[in-house]
């Protein structure tokens, strides 16, 4: 059981809803992932196509909590305005706050992020900031009112896994009581398991599932990896060593004088 802003969730896997081949595959992948949170976004609606209306109908049928994002926002004002619009449509104070600062890596503009987080927290939003593993930024986000942090593993959609394991370990150690979710860059179940083994509270997956040849099967694989990683963390992993140590007892070895 993980808790975010007082809400207990059964699953430690959050799933994005983007880039699935069809609504039916999205629905089956969400079920297979056992996710209790899915991320959603807002985009310009066409009066003729009304695609957003159909999507929203599908999401409501999933029976999971939604975490709206401010994806694509590049300024504090864009992010804050989008958050207001999201709160009205999705009827939740939760907002995954993204303020993008750089196009090639989609790295967060952490200065804008902190400012937007402060504004939104003061307005009653429960902010999930998409951030880096930087400890100072994390400190400032918490001081701005955030009670959850979402550090990236690697650039969004890159599937590179955990680029800076040291930084993520330091973040976990420095903020032992803060719910931490590894957000972007996870490409394989083993990456998710690694994040969970490090003690992160949850992971957010999207492209790794939606762009798999079989998204539903991959969602199931991620669910198992997240559960395994969490169980391993709770089990107290051994410390790595530089040199070998025989696992079979040496005492009584034959042919030794």
């Amino acid at each position, binding site marked *: 059981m993980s808790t975010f802003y007082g809400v207990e969730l059964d699953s430690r896997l959050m799933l994005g809803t983007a880039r699935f081949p069809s609504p039916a595959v*999205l629905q089956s992948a969400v079920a297979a992932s056992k996710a209790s949170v899915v991320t959603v*976004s807002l985009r310009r609606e066409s009066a003729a196509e009304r695609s957003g209306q159909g999507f*929203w109908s599908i999401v409501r049928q999933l029976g999971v909590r939604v975490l709206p994002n401010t994806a694509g926002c590049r300024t504090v004002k864009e992010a804050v305005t989008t958050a207001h619009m999201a709160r*009205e449509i999705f009827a939740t104070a939760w907002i995954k706050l993204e303020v993008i600062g750089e196009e090639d890596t989609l790295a967060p503009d952490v200065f804008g992020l902190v400012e937007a987080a402060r504004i939104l927290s003061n307005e009653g939003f429960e902010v999930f900031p998409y951030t880096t593993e930087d400890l100072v930024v994390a400190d400032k986000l918490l001081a701005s009112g955030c009670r959850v942090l979402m550090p990236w593993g690697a650039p969004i959609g890159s599937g590179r896994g955990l680029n800076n394991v040291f930084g993520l370990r330091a973040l976990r150690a420095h903020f032992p009581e803060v719910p931490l979710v590894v957000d972007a860059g996870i490409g394989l179940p083993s990456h998710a398991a690694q994040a969970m083994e490090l003690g992160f509270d949850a992971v*957010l997956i999207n492209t790794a599932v939606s762009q798999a040849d079989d998204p539903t099967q991959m969602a199931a694989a991620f669910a198992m990896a997240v559960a395994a990683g969490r169980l391993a963390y709770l089990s107290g992993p051994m410390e790595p060593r530089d040199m070998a140590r025989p696992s079979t007892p040496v005492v009584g070895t034959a042919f030794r004088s």
Partner: protein
Amino acid sequence: MRIIVNGAARDVSALADLTTALAELGFGEAVVATALNGEFVPLTARSSTTLAAGDQLEVLAPMQGG
């Protein structure tokens, strides 16, 4: 009068309020959120928000996201 809706020029009745304009634009009962000239306009304020020629209106709806 002409306003900009989601980046494209559209015509709505002169002095229309936002609720009326949305209906004219075909959004009717659609689940959308609105921003006028970069400022969020809540559902409760649409009827009391009057549009002017050249206004920039954003009409957003739920969409897939990561």
